[in-house]
């Protein structure tokens, strides 16, 4: 009984255990070359494909180089892609008993989810930084202020936060890595049916109706609007503030719903 008294009274706090869980997730990312490569080139791949395969950087639209319009949209819409791994890892952790092990330890189990979100944010910051640098390298120029540029970057992180909960939920629902991968593919129609890659005006009516009313379109438009600064109104029809607020409302909605779902799935296990 003496040993229990010696080791049992202390308890890891929620912030401390969140950092510990996040550290494990970040290390496992950094030390798995496939993940690093994937996390780094995913966004970059889209940009480079656009630039060199479709020659997109050469076009202009209403007097502005098309690249200035495309890059921010691509990056915003690419955020969910960089987080698909979260669904897979979550499902695998469940499958292998890693989550059981964690939940059998005397720390607040909310840290298991919070740690994952924190780790996602770190990894996403890395991916976004690389993608932004490559964006500039292929000819993108910021028309908004530096502050607007930073806000655009921060907005992408907020979207990431929301999608982190989505993919955690999918991972917890799926139960194994392959099923999670399958479920996570649901993000593709959402992404490609958005304003990010194709202007919604060119879409058939039904698709257009869908594209105009879904979160990725509003996120892509918000980041675009910030990057275009003063040109936003002419290009997109509304001021940057309009798009930013819209995308933040989407993010908050997604976060609230999927936070609740993820917690429910986590508890049920």
């Amino acid at each position, binding site marked *: *009984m003496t*040993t*229990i008294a*010696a*080791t*049992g009274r*202390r*308890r*890891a706090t929620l912030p*401390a*255990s969140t950092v*510990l869980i996040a*550290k*494990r997730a970040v*290390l*496992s990312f*950094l*030390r*798995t070359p496939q993940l690093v490569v994937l996390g780094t080139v995913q966004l970059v791949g889209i940009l480079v494909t656009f630039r060199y395969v479709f020659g997109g950087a050469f076009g202009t639209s209403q007097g502005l180089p098309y690249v200035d319009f495309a890059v921010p949209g691509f990056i915003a819409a690419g955020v969910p892609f960089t987080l698909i791994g979260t669904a897979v890892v979550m499902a695998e952790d469940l*499958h*292998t*008993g*890693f989550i*059981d*092990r*964690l*939940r*059998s*330890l*005397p*720390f607040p189990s909310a840290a298991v989810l919070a740690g994952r979100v924190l780790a996602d944010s770190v990894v996403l910051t890395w991916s976004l930084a690389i993608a932004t640098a490559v964006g500039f390298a292929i000819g993108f120029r910021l028309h908004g202020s530096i502050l607007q540029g930073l806000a655009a970057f921060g907005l992408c992180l907020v979207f990431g936060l929301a999608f982190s909960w989505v993919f955690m939920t999918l991972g917890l629902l799926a139960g194994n890595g392959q099923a999670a991968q399958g479920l996570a593919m649901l993000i593709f129609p959402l992404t490609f049916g958005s304003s990010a890659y194709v202007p919604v005006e060119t879409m058939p009516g039904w698709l257009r109706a869908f594209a105009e009313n879904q979160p990725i379109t509003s996120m892509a438009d918000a980041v675009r609007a910030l990057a275009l600064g003063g040109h936003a109104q002419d290009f997109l029809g509304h001021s940057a503030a309009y798009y930013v607020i819209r995308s933040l409302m989407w993010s908050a909605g997604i976060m609230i719903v999927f936070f609740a779902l993820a917690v429910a799935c986590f508890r049920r*296990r």
Partner: protein
Amino acid sequence: MADLTIEARGLIKRFGKKTALDGLDLAVEPGQVVAVLGPNGAGKTTFVRSVATLLRLDSGELRVAGIDVRREPEAVRRVIGLAGQYASVEPAMTGRENLEMVARLYGQPARTARANATRVLERFGLAGDADRLARTYSGGMRRKLDLGASLVSTPRLLLLDEPTTGLDPRARIELWDAIDGLVEHGTDVLLTTQYLEEAERLAGHIVIIDHGRVVASGPPAQLKRRVGGNVLEVHVRDRADLAKVAASLARPGHAEPQVDEATCVVSVGAGDQAGIGGLIAGLRAIDDAGVELADISVRQPKLEEVFLALTGQESAGQARVRATK
């Protein structure tokens, strides 16, 4: 008097229509290794998970070290360690990092965590590999690391769910050695297994479960006596001799010899001292009759034979295997 390490009464857990625990009763005295033995689907994992506070029981009472699992799950988590059915270590962290992480999650300050990690690594012979990534470990090393992770905090009760499943024989023996001696260090052990041999090797008390209930329990020697002791297998060269051999080995008051036509083997429980005498006489008669034997061996009874002997029925697992054939 000290609290029982585990006290389970009438545990019921349903998953939809499936009843995984069906009124399970179990008491574990302090200071021992208890093996829960049962076929696939018997409810072993469900029981372990409920002790580890990981699932909500539909009914029943469950106490660990006197603490109610339902009312004070967090207090229970402070006194248990869990190593699940798969080695749940992070492959992209070193052995040391894995242990330090768990120690920190137990609430230990960094220095204590480091010291405990080192202690566990040394104890399990992993010190030389402490700073290699766990993904480079063999299956056996990973299991040892997994086991060690639970021991960074000196739990009062260690739960091991099928700790050696999937290990090669050498790694299995190494893990058995690692489990030995835990009790002397003040940690009681509850482990699950599908192998009587493993239960007998490790545990002072065996609880056999099937369909989510306890079928039999007791010290290994006593249980084995009830099922007729070790099994003698006689392998004949000529299939035609099987009946003759079976008849020679039959003894009044003992279980009938079983004949397997496909493998040309007659198997029979050795039984008590008198029974063994009878078997020797039977073997002599077989020899006198000039029957040619290919081989002869003595082995532990298989789990299926234990079930047959104890319940007169095959286990749920075996019935399922038969149904799918």
